């Protein structure tokens, strides 16, 4: 039966992620036909530094693409296009004549540019480039990472100015290699990835020369900015040229934007939240780039071909799934992540306890680096089951804070929240989320929304799907949770949560 529903043709998507590279083949209904995956090494040269070997990553990408095609038992004639989604902001510089990276890629989590970002803020501070780029000066973003490489790899700046060096996030690296590498590979990036560099002007979708100069990145190393769904080139040469030569490379989207696309959040006000180690929530704000006054990021959601770009507001929560892991690994209160639900379900409520996991400060919408974690409201009555409940509630309340900020910035009320990621198997969490948001929470049938989004964009570019309406028709609801909490209880609990948040602030005294 599975086979009867997965007749060709197909679209393949590459997900070049933080811990692994994957390739998934999808059929026209958006169902998974085959998957292949390979992890790569996480390199930690110093505390706070995280690097990847880009050559290893490219080799893995070649392997997983070949692997997924082989597992599906299909040939190049069955594949209409190949799309790419990637870990965002991870930065690479390579030599365009040899194809060799000049240094390991600097991963988004890497904090080596902290001091540089402070310095770049000059007398203005974090928000010096926010109006143009939608981003605060923070170590995540790619531009300052490129500057660090240019400053610290010997002779690199001269080579860059001589035109021998190419800059890219992982989408650019994969596309350049797929389309021929040193033999005419296309040096491009898409608007979503470019919007995470701090070098692109959100309103013109072009590199901002003034900002590039201020950050210290020469314009000639930057890739051409293209839409998220168009044919960038064809698979050419190398190991994949033999099996997939001529297949259009037709999409690129940062991973969170790809999930937004895979969840078919095509209307203004539609939002998705991905629950993993941390949580990333994006809301489609239509053709308007909305400045955030509530600590959210303004970013590009996607752009299909020559249509207008669609913007998004983004809020991230640093600690969600990792709090459950902490309960398992550091506290030993549970043996597996799934058991948090068992423990939490053994009591009716939180017993008065609130857990604010500000392990490395408070992120959106507060941005307080002087905050540290707190468990508030403890009495003799509280058991480990109440704490387990408080752990799940922490994820739900933090989501509520982000949605409140989004409503404030955009003026759009959240109609329903589409969720994905590993924590969506936690039924109690999903119900709690719906209760706290006072909105339906919906889980789609395909958990792999990130890869699906890249496949959708690539399929649209080559006419495999004709419109976003086609894609919506593929979307299937696997489960839906509706609010069951009365308004008074919700209001009282939220007030208590906010009091607990208040108590985390100012714990570190040497920071402001």
């Amino acid at each position: 039966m599975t086979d009867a529903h997965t007749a060709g043709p197909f679209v393949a998507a590459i997900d070049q992620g933080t811990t692994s590279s994957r390739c998934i083949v999808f059929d026209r209904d958006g169902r998974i036909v085959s998957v292949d995956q390979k992890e790569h090494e996480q390199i930690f040269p110093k505390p706070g530094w995280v690097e990847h070997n880009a050559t290893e990553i490219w080799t893995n990408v070649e392997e997983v693409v070949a692997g997924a095609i082989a597992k599906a038992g299909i040939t190049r004639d069955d594949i209409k296009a190949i799309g790419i989604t990637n870990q965002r902001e991870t930065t690479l510089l390579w030599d365009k004549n040899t194809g060799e990276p000049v240094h390991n890629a600097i991963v988004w989590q890497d904090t080596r540019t902290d001091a540089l970002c402070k310095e770049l803020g000059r007398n203005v501070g974090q928000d010096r480039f926010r109006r143009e780029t939608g981003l605060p000066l923070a170590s995540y973003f790619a531009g300052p990472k490129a500057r660090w490489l240019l400053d610290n790899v010997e002779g690199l700046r001269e080579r860059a100015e001589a035109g021998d060096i190419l800059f890219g996030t992982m989408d650019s690296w994969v596309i350049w290699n797929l389309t021929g590498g040193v033999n005419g590979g296309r040096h491009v990036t898409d608007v979503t990835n470019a919007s995470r560099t701090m070098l692109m002007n959100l309103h013109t979708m072009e590199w901002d020369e003034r900002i590039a100069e201020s950050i210290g990145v020469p314009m000639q190393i930057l890739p051409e900015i293209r839409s998220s769904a168009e044919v960038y080139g064809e698979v050419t040469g190398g190991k994949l040229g033999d099996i997939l030569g001529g297949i259009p490379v037709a999409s690129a989207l940062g991973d969170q934007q790809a999930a937004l696309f895979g969840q078919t959040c095509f209307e203004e006000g539609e939002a998705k939240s991905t629950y993993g180690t941390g949580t990333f929530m994006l809301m489609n704000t239509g053709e308007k780039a909305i400045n955030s006054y509530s600590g959210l990021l303004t970013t590009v959601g996607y752009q299909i071909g020559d249509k207008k770009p669609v913007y998004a507001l983004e809020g991230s929560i640093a600690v969600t799934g990792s709090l459950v892991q902490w309960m398992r690994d550091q506290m030993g209160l549970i043996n597996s992540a799934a058991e948090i639900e068992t423990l939490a379900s053994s009591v009716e409520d939180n017993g008065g306890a609130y857990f604010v996991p500000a392990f490395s400060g408070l992120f959106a919408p507060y941005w307080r680096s002087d905050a540290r974690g707190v468990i508030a409201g403890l009495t003799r009555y509280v058991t480990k089951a109440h704490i387990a409940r408080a752990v799940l509630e922490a994820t739900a309340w933090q989501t509520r804070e982000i949605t409140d900020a989004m409503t404030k910035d955009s003026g759009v009320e959240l109609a329903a929240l589409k969720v994905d990621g590993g924590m969506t198997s936690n039924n109690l969490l999903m119900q709690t989320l719906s209760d706290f948001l006072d909105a339906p929470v919906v889980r789609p049938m395909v958990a792999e929304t990130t890869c699906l989004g890249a496949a959708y964009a690539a399929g649209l570019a080559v006419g495999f799907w004709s419109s976003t309406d086609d894609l919506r028709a593929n979307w299937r609801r696997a489960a839906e949770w509706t609010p069951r909490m009365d308004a008074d209880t919700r209001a009282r609990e939220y007030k208590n949560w906010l009091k607990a948040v208040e108590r985390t602030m100012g714990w570190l005294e040497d920071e402001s």
Partner: protein
Amino acid sequence: MARNIQSLERAAAMLRLLAGGERRLGLSDIASALGLAKGTAHGILRTLQQEGFVEQDAASGRYQLGAELLRLGNSYLDVHELRARALVWTDDLARSSGESVYLGVLHQQGVLIVHHVFRPDDSRQVLEVGAMQPLHSSALGKVLAAYDPVAHSEALECERESFTAHTVTAPEAFEEILDLTRARGYAADTEETWEGIASVAAPIHDRRRMPVGAVGITGAVERVCPSGEMRPELIAAVRDCARAVSRDLGASRF
């Protein structure tokens, strides 16, 4: 005093190592962390793997703690662990069958629904996690009664209510259905619990071949059993799903 057994000490050290912060480790990491030769470490890991205490990730070749440890710690499989492991497979079953999917475990005298995937059309549906189904008439219940001795005695002892004209209540006839279920590897319910509704279910086993739950699809009798016969491709899809979840729980291929 008797001497301690060195290989057991080493095995215990490996389990502790794998239970630490870094959850997946390669053979050379494990060997060097414990100061063992690779061959020695590999022999112990292989034994732990056969016992289900350790699992090897097929893609990376790295080792992690196995599902068996959970059972030892709990003496039962956590239903939320079961749901987490079943999520991908049950989504795919709903997608391929076009019907809603239920995952159930024995609870008191009935089947507790621990996971529910909506039928993949755009109709309004309500999540039924936490609902109960009868042991003697539903497909999930019959599977549990056929494979789990505890469920079997519960089903025989409880009052077998007649929900429709098709419900089988007599003990001998019920036993025959269970025999048939065991012989075929799945159970069916054609309007025996609800008028107009048919379902088919298959057992989920852990690595000790213990039945830990049942998974099945439920839909309108006209779609699931056109012309009175359960569609064979639906049966195959349900059994494939049950096998896939079982494999994820550490059961060997069968």
